[in-house]
């Protein structure tokens, strides 16, 4: 199985409202794939369609080698696991009771039950906490139990819907470390989030969705495709005639505070030229560095206008 997930022209409408339109992407097996978008962009809807919880209006998809369809739903769901935004634990039951229930739903034989539950809890750092009541756990620990539950069936594809939503920074970091661990185990992870730094840190590739799919690629590819490379220059005092200094190198703009951005095709070869031009103009060079665009810049470039328009 080369591709863990394939979606082709996936569309989902709820009555007159279009939640997802004509979405096409592939996720190779073993990849951590980030699905980014603002609230209401269709991320959860896409996960629900791919996990056969809801039917697509049109388009086709295949997950873990099984076509997404009502008649194949049981087989598909056997090969995947979904961790929903809130872990949805039975708070009156113990951690073990919660996991035992889901092990039963996945048809895990009782002779393997203890081993699987122990391994899942160990994987999320909760070994030995079987008998604690789920309702007595902190939000972060509940999230971990939710993840342990998702690991029980040893899924080929794991859907994580906003796994760090509502968690404090420490708990968020712990969940991110767990996701990193899943990559090492070869699990394909489909991660929906609107935390950009989380996606950048964890994901091999990222898709940005806002009802329609805006872009797919690695964070680096997205930056390259959306932003031309540039150098950032800071001088000891504002240049008297910046055009005379930078025009020969590339398009430039002033960032204020004696700082300038110069667009160049190849930052490495252009940097010495810029340095020489600044010195030749009699200015002191304080800083010269390649301009870095964050994933947030990419995201805002693609989605920011939609969000503003919606307001």
């Amino acid at each position, binding site marked *: 199985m080369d591709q863990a997930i394939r979606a082709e022209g996936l569309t989902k409408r709820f009555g007159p409202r279009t939640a997802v339109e004509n979405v096409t992407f592939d996720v190779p097996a073993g990849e951590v794939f980030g699905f980014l978008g603002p609230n209401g962009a269709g991320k959860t809807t896409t996960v*629900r369609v791919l996990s056969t919880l809801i039917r697509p209006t049109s388009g086709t998809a295949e997950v873990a080698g099984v076509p997404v369809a009502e008649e194949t739903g049981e087989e598909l769901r056997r090969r995947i696991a*979904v961790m929903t935004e809130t872990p949805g634990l039975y708070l009156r039951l113990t951690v073990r*009771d919660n996991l035992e229930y889901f092990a*039963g739903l*996945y048809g895990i034989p009782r002779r393997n039950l203890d081993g699987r539950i122990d391994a899942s809890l160990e994987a999320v750092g909760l070994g030995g906490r079987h008998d604690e009541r789920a309702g007595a756990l902190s939000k972060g620990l509940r999230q971990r139990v939710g993840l342990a539950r998702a690991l029980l069936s040893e899924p080929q594809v794991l859907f994580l819907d906003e796994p760090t939503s509502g968690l404090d920074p420490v708990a968020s970091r712990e969940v991110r470390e767990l996701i990193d661990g899943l990559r090492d185990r070869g699990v394909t992870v489909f991660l929906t989030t609107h935390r950009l730094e989380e996606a950048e840190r964890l994901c091999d590739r990222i898709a940005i969705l806002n009802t329609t799919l805006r872009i797919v690629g690695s964070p680096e590819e997205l930056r390259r495709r959306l932003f031309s490379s540039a150098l950032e220059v800071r001088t000891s005092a504002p240049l008297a005639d910046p055009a005379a200094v930078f025009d020969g190198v590339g398009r430039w703009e002033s960032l204020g505070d004696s700082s300038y951005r110069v667009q160049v095709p190849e930052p490495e070869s252009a940097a010495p030229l810029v340095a020489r031009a600044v010195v030749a103009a009699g200015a002191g060079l304080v800083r010269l560095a390649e301009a870095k665009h964050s994933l947030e810049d990419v995201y805002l470039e693609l989605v920011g206008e939609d969000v503003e328009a919606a307001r």
Partner: protein
Amino acid sequence: MNPRIGAVMRKELREYRRNKLVVGTMATLPAMFFVLPLISLLALGPGTSEPTMKGAAGAALLWLLIMPLLLPPIVAGYAVVGERDQGTLEPVLTTPVRREELVLGKALAVLIPTVGVAYALYAIFLVVVRLRAVHEAWRLVSGPGQLIALAVFAPLLAAFSIWVGLAISTRSSDVRVAQQLSAFAVLPLVGLVALFTFRVVSPTVRVAVFGALLLVVLDVGAWRIVSRLFDRERLLTRYGRT
């Protein structure tokens, strides 16, 4: 038993055991309804006329038979909408469990304690009547007809009441509304049971066999219907088939 049905049933029973409302309802509701008819039966003396005796015995038996109808709506009404409210339904729907298995597991988890309470109550009732009531009262409530009627009809009536509760729960957006509607929906059946208990309709063997077979057919049909109503998409989004 299918392991997935067993898993659903065990989980539901564990949850009920830890839910004070469910345990309290299961323990107090039958007793509340049952105590007065039992006392009125015990109060009858040896010279009581036969119609009065039959009326008191009929009332006591009526409560024994309708208790399996009235208990399930409180629990079954919660079964689906309650899970949706507390956010536990969606993770369950992402597993390979079939909807027929899920609803059957939930139904069995309500049926077992309901029938258990009904049988236990009848046993206590018989002991008390044997020890404290006049012989004529004992004769009217302990015949083979009464025993078989309770043994056969208590689970069949309870099952039907459970399916009604589950059907309403799949379509409700509020736990209390689901419970109240479920209780209201089984009232016609309570009336039907009363007709037999008070011998307005004569409970012959043929009528009893026909009634039992009809309830079996209704229960199986209701299981199918509730399974169809249990549409994943509709439960999560209010859109979907059925």
